[in-house]
């Protein structure tokens, strides 16, 4: 760490060291020279004092001369002379040789020998003058008695007068010279300071310009590196981020991550917080455990990829509108090492929705194909036009049922009425499914009817009892749709080969009636033969042929279920074991159509109808006794009236006849029923001429 810092910042460290060294040198010199200047000041001061001392010595000599008779004054003058002489002598000596002197305040100071030539000259000359002067003064000071003193005084005074001025001048020269030296030192000091500070400033400027530039350069590099990283993170299509041990998302992550998760500011968030409510709790917990494994040094990361629970995870992203957006993300995890230790996990998230969608679609279409083949086999035998017609009827019936359901009604009675209406609609398409031998529809509608009956049997019907019915309805609608899709495909496939005929007769659908008869008679344990005539001779619209077909179906079903006796019964009655049903279509000269369904069974059981009517409370028993056979017979056209002992798929749900009558009425037709006990029943439908029918419609 220190080494790298030294390497990186060597230049700046050296520069700063240089700056400090410079400052320190200037400071030291300053310190040193300041001391010298202080010393010089003492010298200047003392050399100035020499001038004053020489004057005082002269004055003291005169004082001695004029103090004759005044012993006190004389002694004072002598002491003064002694002191001055010693001071002057010692100071001059100190200037010459270097050494101690007495300072202005009386303390001892050390003087260095003056060494400039001018100073030396002054000192040497001064010493020459001083030597004899000092001897003369000493003679004065050492004189013993008045006479001796006077004798010594005279030459001293004479010498003083002769030389004092010269001595004074020399001392003055010394002072000036010492001052001059001090001044030049101060100048030098200022120079040194100026140069030092200038160098320091230059150094500082170099640091400032050069290193700031370098810093800015490296900052720029860091910034551009960061910008590159940022740009990469901004533009990559994958979600990229680092996870630490606590599974916290790094502050830097790719922009795509926000887009993918439809969420901002993901840095600092835990992975759990990001994924919760998007993936199931179970997957989330497994993911936590998996990531913990990635942080374990002893586990080989390359060997656990298969255990990654987020390899292809379904992510449900709430769009804040109450809807889920389902996506598939693939998370991959890579260890990030720092100094040989696992530091973070680099996570890459890729949106693989499209891939998964395609895979699913493939699987789904395979499954759909299989289902379609199933449906296909169940409808393949049916006449395509009839099937189309039938599908349309189912669609209409489903619409009707839904409309009935939708009608607001709350009470038990209203709901029960609803149930009856639904039953009628479903029963109708059930009968036709049976006729067309469409087993899937037969099953669906039969189950539907059973559901209706379950509800019907309840004491207090409520709205939620209808839930299974609406579920059935949806199933029926969906099934119808899938068959429609299939027939549309088949239609497109075979349209080229299709016959151009506009009108078709029932004869082409002959087989489905026969199928129906065979199935019904088998179920009821009866033997019946079907005879037809004229069915292919009258051209008619699909609507008309549909009605007649439905009528035939209902007639056959009723005949087999109610009319025709079992083979053993017929044997006892001396009838052919095999019953007969006859279908006949004819057209009068006016164009009116007559369609007859006739059987040779036991005829309509009037007593049974009366009983049933009494049971259903249509009228009282006594009233019913008075009803004519015709009136009783017409009851079979009433909704919900059924006389079969048990409800079977063939009869006994009492809705078919009711509907047929409605349809015939709608076409301005009429129905006639004739029955002879023991001999059979004949139901005739009269319809206006086909052309007139289409006009009426």
């Amino acid at each position: 760490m220190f080494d790298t810092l030294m390497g990186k910042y060597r230049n700046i460290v050296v520069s700063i060291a240089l700056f400090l060294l410079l400052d320190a040198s200037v400071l030291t010199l300053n310190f040193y020279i300041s001391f010298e200047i202080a010393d010089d000041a003492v010298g200047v001061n003392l050399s100035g004092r020499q001038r004053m001392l020489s004057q005082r010595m002269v004055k003291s000599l005169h004082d001695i001369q004029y103090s004759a008779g005044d012993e006190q004054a004389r002694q004072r003058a002598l002491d003064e002379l002694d002191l001055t002489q010693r001071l002057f002598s010692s100071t001059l000596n100190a200037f010459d040789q270097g050494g101690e002197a007495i300072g202005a305040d009386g303390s001892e100071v050390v003087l260095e020998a003056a060494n400039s030539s001018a100073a030396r000259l002054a000192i040497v000359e001064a010493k020459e003058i001083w030597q004899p002067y000092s001897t003369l003064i000493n003679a004065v000071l050492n004189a013993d008695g008045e006479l001796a003193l006077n004798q010594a005084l005279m030459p001293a005074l004479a010498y003083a007068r002769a030389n004092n001025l010269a001595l004074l001048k020399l001392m003055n020269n010394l002072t000036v010279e010492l001052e001059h030296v001090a001044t030049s030192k101060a100048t030098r000091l200022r120079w040194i300071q100026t140069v030092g500070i200038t160098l320091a400033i230059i150094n500082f400027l170099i640091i400032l310009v050069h290193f700031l530039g370098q810093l800015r350069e490296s900052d720029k590099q860091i910034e551009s590196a960061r910008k590159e990283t940022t740009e990469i993170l901004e533009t990559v299509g994958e979600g990229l981020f680092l996870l630490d041990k606590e599974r916290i998302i790094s502050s830097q992550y790719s922009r795509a991550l926000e887009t993918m998760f439809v969420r901002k500011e993901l840095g600092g968030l835990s992975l759990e917080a990001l994924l919760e409510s998007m993936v199931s709790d179970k997957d989330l917990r497994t993911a936590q455990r998996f990531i913990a494994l990635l942080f374990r040094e002893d586990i080989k990361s390359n060997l656990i990829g298969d255990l990654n629970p987020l390899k292809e995870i379904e992510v449900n992203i709430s769009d804040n509108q109450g809807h889920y957006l389902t996506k598939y993300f693939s998370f991959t995890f890579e260890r990030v090492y720092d100094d040989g230790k696992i530091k973070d996990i680099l996570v890459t998230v890729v949106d693989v929705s499209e891939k998964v969608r395609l895979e699913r679609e493939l699987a789904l279409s395979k499954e759909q194909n299989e289902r379609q083949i199933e449906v296909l086999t169940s409808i393949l035998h049916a006449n395509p036009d009839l099937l189309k017609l039938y599908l349309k009827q189912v669609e209409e019936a489903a619409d009707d049922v839904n409309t009935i359901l939708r009608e607001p009604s709350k009470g038990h009675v209203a709901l029960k009425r609803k149930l009856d209406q639904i039953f009628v609609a479903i029963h109708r398409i059930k009968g036709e499914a049976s006729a067309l031998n469409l087993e899937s529809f037969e099953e669906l509608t039969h189950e539907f009817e059973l559901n209706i009956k379950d509800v019907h049997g309840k004491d207090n019907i409520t709205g939620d009892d209808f839930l299974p019915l609406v579920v059935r309805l949806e199933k029926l609608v969906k099934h119808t749709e899938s068959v429609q899709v299939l027939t549309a495909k088949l239609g497109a496939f075979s349209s080229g080969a299709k016959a151009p005929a506009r009108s078709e007769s029932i004869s082409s659908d002959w087989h489905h009636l026969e199928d129906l008869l065979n199935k019904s008679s088998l179920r009821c344990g009866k033997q019946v033969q079907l005879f037809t005539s004229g069915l292919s001779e009258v051209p008619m619209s699909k609507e008309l042929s549909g009605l007649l077909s439905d009528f035939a179906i209902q007639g056959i079903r009723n005949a087999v279920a109610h009319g025709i006796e079992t083979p053993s019964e017929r044997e006892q009655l001396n009838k052919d074991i095999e019953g007969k049903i006859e279908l006949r279509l004819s057209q009068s000269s006016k164009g009116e159509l007559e369609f007859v369904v006739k059987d040779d069974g036991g005829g309509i059981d009037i007593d049974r109808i009366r009983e049933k009517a009494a049971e259903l409370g249509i009228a009282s028993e006594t009233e019913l006794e008075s009803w004519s056979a015709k009136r009783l017979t017409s009851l079979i056209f009433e909704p919900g009236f059924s006389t079969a002992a048990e409800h079977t798929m063939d009869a006994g749900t009492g809705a078919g006849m009711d509907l047929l009558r409605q349809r015939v009425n709608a076409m301005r037709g009429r129905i006639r029923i004739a029955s002879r006990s023991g001999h059979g029943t004949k139901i005739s439908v009269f319809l206006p001429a086909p052309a007139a029918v289409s006009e009426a419609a």
Partner: protein
Amino acid sequence: MSEDTLKIFINGVLNYFQHTSDKDVKVGAPYLVENRDPTCFDYTGIIGVSGPYKGTVYFTAPKILLTHLLLSLGEQDTSNENIMDIVGEVANTISGNARSEFGQEFMISVPVMIEGDGSKIQLPEQLRSYVIPIYWKAYSAAVVICLENV
């Protein structure tokens, strides 16, 4: 879709009304609607469902019903804000009920409330929704369920 699944959502609503002073809440006969024109009243609370079934469930009610609902809960302030709140509460109850019934495999979103026409309710157009009318006092509301089997 099964009857039981539908019941789970309906029960969510019924549960809520059980807590009101007028507990007499009735379920009407359910029916189907094409998703092209979603049914809705004045206020709607929508929750998203994901997991084995995916789709949307919403509770929608007219303002008058919600106002009375607020009053019956002892809330005198029937401001718009409070009405939005109560729709959210009902949707929350549906969501909570579904969460506890369906378990971990399902994800149920936090409800979103909308006011006004149903253009904001997005449903897959090719599918149908189940509409279950809810009658309370003299008013009717509905739970609408559009779930796809995945």
